[in-house]
């Protein structure tokens, strides 16, 4: 990085610690500029990290897990379960006679647990009033910027099976 060093034969201490008072303004400005450029490098490295993660991204393999029996919950009722791991809490709502939807219970804003508001027919986060659509998990209002991840359900016989997380 010698090409970044200032020219001349002055020792480094003389460049960084000005002898004259008037030069002090230059030293502080140059140091601030260096700090800003290093921060810029940090932002660039962050973007590169995201790019590398994108290139080497592998779609996760989800287990197939029975989560409820058909008719176990009434229309408008809710069941909580964990999928794909015990730490991933989910919420399932029966929206019609044969209609079930399921989403991650973790709000995409700050990970508070969302709950189903039957009166408003939407999922609500009590922490910062983030509201999500019951149809597709899209954000209706509030600080969350991403929809709730959806749990794909499949009916097999009398059982509802969780097969995948989307989003």
């Amino acid at each position: 990085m010698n090409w970044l060093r200032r020219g001349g034969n002055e020792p480094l201490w003389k460049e960084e610690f000005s002898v004259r008072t008037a030069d002090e303004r230059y030293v502080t400005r140059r140091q601030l500029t260096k700090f800003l450029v290093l921060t810029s490098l940090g932002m660039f490295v962050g973007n590169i990290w995201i790019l590398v993660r994108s290139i080497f991204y592998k779609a996760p393999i989800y287990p197939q897990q029975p989560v409820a029996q058909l008719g176990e919950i009434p229309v408008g009722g809710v069941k909580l379960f964990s999928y794909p791991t015990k730490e991933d809490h989910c919420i399932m709502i029966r929206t019609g006679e044969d209609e079930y939807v399921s989403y991650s219970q973790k709000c995409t804003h700050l990970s508070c647990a969302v709950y189903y508001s039957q009166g408003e027919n939407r999922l609500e986060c009590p922490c910062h009033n983030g509201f999500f659509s019951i149809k597709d998990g899209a954000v209706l209002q509030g600080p969350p910027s991403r929809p709730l991840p959806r749990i794909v359900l499949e009916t097999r016989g009398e059982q509802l099976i969780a097969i995948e997380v989307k989003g």
Partner: protein
Amino acid sequence: MRTSNELPPQNRGLTAIAGAMSLIAILLIVQIWLLSATLESFLSGNRHTALPAAIFSGVMFLICLGLYAFVDRVDSEVRVSGDGD
């Protein structure tokens, strides 16, 4: 009102450095926004924005680096010319 050519060399240098620093600060703000937007996009499952964002961020970093070299050169020149005062 005095023009920049009428200013003493020390003040001219300071003005140039302040201008370059302002540009760097603006570029940095854009880079911070770009990183947060790319991360948001990546987390929501869209992985196609990562490459153009990385290229754009790299270009902005190179511009910042160029401006730093400019600041360094001006600093060096003005302080050398100041030695003769």
